[in-house]
């Protein structure tokens, strides 16, 4: 029983972190119809920024994550503004390929600069834990979860309530109309991509705190973002939250009770079935699913 509780707890905590990773991915997809295959490498890059900062100046990773966010925001903004915007009107394989090329560039770049060794960001408290009823709860994971939930909520508030957020939403719904209202689509697209990259970078800092990372892990986070974004419904931040928790739980339970790595097969089966039977996601709006390709 306590092993079940332990798995559930870990699943939920991990799920919160996954939700933050997927939130940015989902935002970019929903607003610009771009599937960013380099999203996972943004996460890992964020982890390296926090790691490097800590080893150079001793800054705590939970502060360092803001540096990760800033660095990734700048990178994301520039990439969208001066590269991806150039092919936004081309067929979808083109943006897929472009971001894949970017992913190759970043992952190999990190390999060259940081090597392929596994790293982790050490803190005095992250692996300390308190327990109750046979269940252990590490502080690091708890903090990471709380930060992830808080940031996701802030993102939702920003998108739904601020001027910037509304211009992002409007541009996502109808670029032509948004332009007529005086919204600079080029800038808004770059902003959206920058925000998404910043969230990924932030999440990366926490990924590095609660576990290990290396450049090749990027693909795994991209794929998980994919699955979560679809489960949650495109462009839906609360959906990403729900999707993240579902995947976190499925991974934790599956790892506990299924032999071998059947849990991975199960996750993909769930993905395909959701796509076939409920393409608008678990809590998604039909709007995004019915949306035609731009």
């Amino acid at each position, binding site marked *: 029983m306590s092993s079940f509780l332990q798995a559930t707890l870990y699943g939920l905590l991990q799920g919160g972190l996954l939700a933050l990773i997927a939130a940015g991915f989902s935002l970019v997809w929903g607003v610009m119809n771009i599937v960013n295959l380099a999203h996972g490498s943004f996460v890992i890059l964020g982890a390296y920024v926090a790691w490097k900062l800590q080893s150079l100046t001793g800054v705590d990773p939970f502060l360092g994550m803001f540096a990760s966010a800033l660095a990734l925001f700048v990178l994301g903004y520039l990439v969208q503004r001066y590269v991806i915007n150039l092919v*936004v009107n081309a067929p979808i394989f083109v943006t897929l390929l472009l971001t894949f090329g970017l992913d190759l560039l970043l992952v190999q770049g990190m390999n060259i600069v940081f090597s392929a060794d596994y790293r982790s960001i050490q803190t005095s408290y992250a692996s300390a834990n308190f327990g109750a009823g046979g269940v252990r709860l590490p502080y690091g994971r708890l903090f990471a979860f709380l930060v992830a939930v808080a940031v996701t909520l802030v993102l939702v508030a920003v998108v739904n309530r601020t001027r910037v957020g509304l211009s992002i939403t409007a541009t996502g719904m109808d670029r032509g109309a948004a332009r007529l209202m005086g919204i600079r689509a080029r800038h808004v*697209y770059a902003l959206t991509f920058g925000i998404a990259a910043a969230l990924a970078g932030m999440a990366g800092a926490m990924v590095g705190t609660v576990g290990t990372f290396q450049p090749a892990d990027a693909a795994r986070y991209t794929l998980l973002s994919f699955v979560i974004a679809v489960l949650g419904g495109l462009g839906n931040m609360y959906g990403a939250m729900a999707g993240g928790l579902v995947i976190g739980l499925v991974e934790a339970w599956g790892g506990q009770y299924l032999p071998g790595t059947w849990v991975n097969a199960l996750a993909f089966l769930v993905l395909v079935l959701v796509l076939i039977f409920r393409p608008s996601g678990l809590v998604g709006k039909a709007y995004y699913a019915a949306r035609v390709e731009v």
Partner: protein
Amino acid sequence: MTTQSTAPGRVLGTNPAALRTAFARRWGPWLLGLLIVGGAFALQSQIYVGQERTVSTIFMFVALAQAWNLIGGFAGYACFGQVVFFGLGGYTTAVLMAHTHVGFWVSLVVSALLATAFGALIGLPLLRLKGHYFAIATLGVAEGMREVVINVPSLTGGGAGITVPTVGNQATTAYLGNNGFYVLFLLIAAGSVAISGLVSRSKFGFALRAVNQDEDAAGAVGVNTTRTKVLTFALSGFVTGLVGATYAFQQVTIFPERLFDVNITVLMVIMVVIGGSGTVLGPVLGAVGLQFVSEYLRQHYTNVHIFLLGLIIIVGVVLLPQGVVPYVRDAVRTREFSLLANVRRYRL
């Protein structure tokens, strides 16, 4: 090499020059293709063993790119799980040869047919999805299939891989060797280009291109869009499965990580998009060009070759989003060769 508007109905029997042009347009590409295949055969005796393997790999990717071109290029469905047919074909052949001692040639046919059937089976539900949704669903199928293969070790050897018996009394078919695989991959590549050429010029190809542009409009003029898409997916599964089966025998020992490697799918997509999707010549150019460049970089800049490859993809895609063949075709027609003007067409 794609069907440009030829109207033999108008020119037939009128003017011998026009008749010759029509004839050249109809048969010229086939003759050219035969010449190239003949040249490739002749090349075999002129190169070293190492080069022979490299060229075999190029042939393999020509076939794979052409297979992806059917569903991704002609039909316009961005399949990001194409490697599932490759893995399915490879594992079918390996399992048949290792466990049931069936010969390679029979296994090859069974593998390709199984991949075809699988394409039709998953195509029916998945081809109702559009755009990225189809891309991800197929990706999910491929990744899921890899996990299944890893988790049934009694049949597939699991993560430790499976070995095709090639020597001793367990061997059912003598190993083909570098020369044999060179010829086999060459024939499969030539066959895939021929299939693409036939599709491009046929009644079926018209249906396919109509589906690519607008399915409602295609249905309205009598095109059975469901059948067209599913058949295309099955056909592309057939070619990919054939290649996978041959690859498995060539490698002798295969692993799920390699046979279901998402990068193989991505390579197919890159080759098709850079060459020009929905054209017959584009995937060939893309496969040959990219493999050539990749091999060159590997040899001369070993440490940073993937980094450079990423850079080349980005620059290539930004400058020529529509691919080399369509760009050249349009540039010749409109006399507008400027790459900058080309970039302007797709930017925000």
